[in-house]
């Protein structure tokens, strides 16, 4: 089972992101379960959503306490909520930011986790360019597809088209492609970088 926890703020499409990830996994023939953290959601408040993916039926209903991956849609949460609680040692972290882990003040993570699985992507900027609104969820999911390979970009694009009306869907797909390419390039760079 592959478990992803998505952190963000109300209005950033955190719950929608978990749902779209589950739809993409479903489209690839996998079992998936997406659910929100069930808070009294409001704009700006911290929100958590969860997505489990497995090749068999998912029965468990507890929140994800030991995620394989974290997607952080809002870097201002980094020092407010214990985002990294329970993350598995070989886990993935993708943060929405134009800055790197050191600049974000979480450089120590690079020694605790596998370096090539920790990435940032300027998702809000990419979203603004293509969608015209600071909703980074699709952009991050596409980056996450590139980073983790848990679902394909094709499946994600199908999920996006299923979710949004045509015009908005195409803008999201364009943003997703840029993000996917961006993260793929980052990963190639990390693979060739000398280890420190």
């Amino acid at each position, binding site marked *: 089972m592959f478990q992803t926890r998505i952190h963000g703020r109300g209005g950033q499409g955190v719950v929608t992101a978990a749902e779209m990830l*589950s*739809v993409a996994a479903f489209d690839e023939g996998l*079992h998936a379960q*997406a659910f929100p953290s069930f808070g009294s959601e409001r704009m700006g408040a911290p929100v958590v959503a969860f997505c489990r993916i497995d090749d068999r039926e*998912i029965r468990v*209903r507890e929140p994800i306490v030991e995620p394989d991956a974290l997607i952080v849609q809002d870097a201002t949460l980094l020092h407010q909520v214990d985002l990294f609680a329970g993350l598995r040692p070989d886990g993935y972290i993708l943060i929405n930011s134009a800055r790197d882990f050191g600049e974000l003040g979480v450089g120590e993570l690079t020694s605790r986790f596998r370096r090539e699985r920790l990435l940032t992507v300027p998702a809000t900027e990419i979203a603004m360019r293509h969608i015209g609104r600071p909703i980074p969820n699709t952009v991050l999911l596409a980056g996450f597809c590139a980073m983790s390979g848990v679902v394909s970009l094709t499946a994600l694009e199908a999920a996006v088209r299923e979710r949004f009306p045509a015009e908005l869907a195409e803008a999201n797909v364009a943003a997703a492609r840029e993000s996917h390419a961006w993260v793929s390039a980052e990963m190639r760079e990390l693979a060739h970088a000398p280890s420190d």
Partner: protein
Amino acid sequence: MRRQIEGARGVAETVAACRPHVICAYPITPQTHIVEGLGAMVKAGGLAPCEFVNVESEFAAMSVAIGASAAGARAYTATASQGLLFMCEALYNASGLGLPIVMTVANRAIGAPINIWNDHSDSMSQRDSGWIQLYAETNQEAMDLHVQAFRLAEELSVPVMVCMDGFVLTHAVEPLEVPAQAGVDAFLPPFAPRQVLDPDDPVTIGAMVGPEAFTEVRYLAFHRQMEALRRIPEIAAEFAAAFGRDSGGLLHSYRCDDAETIVLAMGSVLGTLKDTVDELRDEGVAVGVVGLTSFRPFPMAAVREALKGAERVIVLERAFAVGVGGIVSADVHTALAGLAQRRHTVIAGLGGRAVTRASLRAVLADAGANRLESLRFLDLDVALVDRELARVRAHPRSGPAAENILRDIGAVAARPH
């Protein structure tokens, strides 16, 4: 065809496939997505001649359902928590009059303290309202139970509540198969009311009944639920034959063969319990699960049969009776009367507290080591409770308990001094 959709959406589409004539509802979390979905379908004309009635309260919602059902309409509504409580008087009228209304309860805690999250306090409070109560383990079962509920309700002329865990099920997105329209049409015949308000053949419904016949009329309500006890498994078997899915019935046993300990529970916690039991079975611990679907009527004989072989029975409940303890437990104990078994009640998952595999494993480990009390509140923060009790002892005016405790855990700012 399976689709990756939200549980509430799946229920809305399933109710639509049951061709209701009247849907009335008042919005309350976490039920809202269901009636929003149905409202949109009615507005788009997909459910004609169904009428969606916007009402001013839950009391009105149930009253409209009563009127609609008495006039021969297939009536549906949904609610939760305080909404169910606000319906209370009308609930007893619906069942007392024998009107086959189907209602979804998206289970949620009852205030005070106000809490929007899941437990079973709401439907448990209407345990004796005369409604049949079926509890869904999964979203698929919740959907399938609605089809069976209309069939059962209309055959016996008795209202049915389909209870599904709020948020945990209603807001979860997963692979679901909405029963196909043709299949539902074949399974659920058109509503042929046992009693109907018809201007061409006038009757009154709702007579005052004095001591001369009240017992008999009430006994008939009991009799109808005993009939339901027989019909529920039959309808589930017919459903399985028609749709190829094992949904509903009185109860389900899981890995109970040779189980020394059996945990009985209702609702979505069963999934987590089954995963926990699989882990423990792999480790050689003889433990099984019984999922109770039909709480009203309570299947005394089936429960006894399912649990009689166990040395230890744990009833895991998402609600409790203040001053007594377990609610489901009381009926389970009656069913098991005379058997030499250790019995425990575990109150878990109140107000949305997650019931985790880790907590369940701890309870089962304690049970195996004979450390489990007859009544335990799962994951109770005893230190937090003791702090408030100490405050109460120390100060004549210790203040509101909920606010004090929230201050202790830092959820609200400390009071300025």
